[in-house]
């Protein structure tokens, strides 16, 4: 049986056979290669434990703290840079480290960065981050608010309305969401010349 990919003995890498262009397969192969690379680059004889690497955790903590500090000082551009860097550091974690921890770290950084983007008026970037956040962590008021605010500022009033309404489904009595919905509804009425 011949498989549609080849294995290189020296580099220990798998590659697609010539003449085959299957993007889905290619992506899986890339993931496999990354795992192999990570595994082969370990110097220890036994693979490391899935515990998060302390070294990276410390670096991350520092970077995030720096980012949040800049945010507080209203140096938004600086905050965005630091938090993006933090995200990159987080990406350096090996793949076998605890997924739950990695996910919550990513979410935390994304939340802070999304705020920084909004403050810095980079709404498209903020929208992308909020969209990502909503797909990994639905049930939070803040994420609905983040997305809605980004949409509101991008002029996507209808989308903002939909997201706020969806947020209100999960948090029926949330005042911030309700207030923002009122705001958006008014904006829509103004846009339509009704008010």
């Amino acid at each position, binding site marked *: 049986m011949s498989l549609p990919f080849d294995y290189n003995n020296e580099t220990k890498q798998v590659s697609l056979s010539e003449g085959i262009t299957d993007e889905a397969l290619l992506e899986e192969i890339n993931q496999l290669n990354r795992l192999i690379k990570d595994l082969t680059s370990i110097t220890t004889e036994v693979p490391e434990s899935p515990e998060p690497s302390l070294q990276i955790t410390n670096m991350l903590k520092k970077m995030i703290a720096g980012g949040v500090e800049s945010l507080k000082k209203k140096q938004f551009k600086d905050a965005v840079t630091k938090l993006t860097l933090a995200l990159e550091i987080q990406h350096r974690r090996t793949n076998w480290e605890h997924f739950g921890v990695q996910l919550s770290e990513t979410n935390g950084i994304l939340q802070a960065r999304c705020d920084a983007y909004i403050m810095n008026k980079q709404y498209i970037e903020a929208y992308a981050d909020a*969209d*990502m956040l909503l*797909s990994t962590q*639905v049930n939070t008021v803040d994420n609905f608010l983040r997305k809605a605010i980004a949409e509101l500022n991008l002029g996507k009033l209808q989308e903002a*309305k*939909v997201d706020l309404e*969806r947020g209100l489904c999960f948090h029926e009595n949330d005042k911030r969401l309700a207030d923002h919905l009122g705001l958006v509804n008014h904006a829509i009425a103004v846009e*339509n*010349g*009704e008010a």
Partner: protein
Amino acid sequence: MNSKYSYDEHSTTWPVFALALLSVATVPLTIQTLVTVFSSSKPTTGTSDGVSYDDDKHAPEPVKKYRKKTQKSHIFNKKGFFLLLAWLAIGFFSFKIYSTEAPSDVSSGVFDPYELLEIGFGTSEKEIKSHYKKLTIKYHPDKIRNKSEEEKKELEERFVLITKAYKALTDETTRENFEKYGHPDGPQETSHGIALPKALIEGALSPVLLAIYITLIGLVLPYLVNSWWTKTKSYTKKGVHNETATMFLENMLNFKPSEIVTVDTILQWLSEAKEFELIKPSSTSDDILQVFRAYLSRSNAKLSDSDYEVIALVPTLINALVDISATFRNTDITNTAFETLKSFSQALLPSIKNELLQLPNVDPAAVAKSPIVRLSKLMKLPKEEIKKVLGITSDAKLQETLDVASTIPIMNLVKSEFKVTGEKVVTPQSNAHISVKVIVKTGAQKNSDFRGKIAPEDMEEPDSFEYLKDPFKIVSEQPELPTAYTPYFPAQRQAKYVAFIVVQKDGKITDSPVFFHNLDLSNLLLTEEELKLESTDAKVGTFKIPFAQPTPTEPGKYQFRVIIKSLDYFTPDLDFPLVMTVEEPPRVEEISYDIPEAEEGSLADTMAQLKAGKLTEIDEEEEGDDDESDLEEEDWSDINTDTEDEDA
């Protein structure tokens, strides 16, 4: 001729046979054609009747040409030609039947001696004899003079028959023959006729008939079966090529949820469709994408006829894509696919200003400068300002633009609710649907204009048996939507709305989208003055979206989002949250009818006992024994009413 069958030598029967066969096919087909011709001519005749506007007026030249080329006439097409031939043939056969003389009744009819002798049944032999003598004198061949050859022949035949009839009643053997075989001459030969002329089967024409048989069975039939089979094999039920459907499916499977879907994504997918390869064999998917872009940026000079063919196919493909994406329950892709369809309808790339750009005579540069994005805002401005916003200079052009703009319906939601037919509340495990009431208005009309102009009964569902039988009928009873104003699209499009339901919890679609062709647009015709009058009645439009799954078993609140979109115009979609509150049905108030108890052992009695037994069980679970007797009584009355109805 040794054949047992007698052929239709004198062409007396086969035209009747052919006429019957032909009219069986032709008459229904003609009626159907006439119906379509008359019903379809309605929307196109009113060019600007207020609710629709003839978009041919503003179509660019190449689009107009393409439309004319592809537009099938309802009368002068293949079907019409066939019908014409069929009616000519019917006329020919009718004439032939009319002009062919039927073989004289005298010889072929049923032999009745009494009738022939013009006497009543049971006449005495003496009288028969005298009557016969009278008749022989009258019909004797020697007595006939001054008659034509034909008449002579007929009279001779009659004379023979009269003689026979007389014999049948007097002569012993003849009488026996008549009684036994129904004919004075004894047993008659039975003959079977074929309603075809002999020449066709045994004569010179028989090779022709054979050739027709061979072509029909050997060539035409296999060809038809083969083409039908390859079509069903390579095209899905939705009318797209199987390879295209597979491509859509693969794209859906490989779609990363983290990606944001845009119209560009959909265009990319569409461009890979197999259909386009069949229309333009030499072009790649990139070329198709170029065609899309050129069309959507309204550069019609770059487009050829085959390009228009490509564009005209897009709605079919989008429908198929939506079908697949709805099966995956993907809201974003479904929604964006419909947005793409809107873009194709109006030939506009996605832009926040599309509500204004879809109007005719508009200068895009001027629109880009203005902060106004909504049609309804624009139309509420004074005329001079509208001119400025749209970059229109002449008053005539502005009027044209406003005429079009006032045919674009904008919907305002007034009421939406989950309904279970025949119930006041949404009960668990029942078939629910969503009823949406909207006010259709033009951009110039304000929502507040309609306050107090809606009859309260319009807002409620009718309480009739008709309604209970088919709650969706009130939607289809609304007037059909007219053709949409889509001057750039290569074919005229009937306006359509689509609705789908999204579960708020996971943000996914519940069922396949539902399409609507009916909506009352008469509100668009209300003038400013009419709206100021107290007495003016505004119409309420209804959408009903079926809910395929039964409602949840557990009482509680379930959140949904309902989206209703126009597929033709850039207008704000209806997009609203809706809560389904599932409750146990309320106890029916006890009504005591004064009706005698059911007789013991009767069907009603047994039914009541059965029902009461069942209800008691439920009752015990819920509240205890207190209500038991009440329930029982209620059921008795229920059953008894039925009995009474039957008696009455």
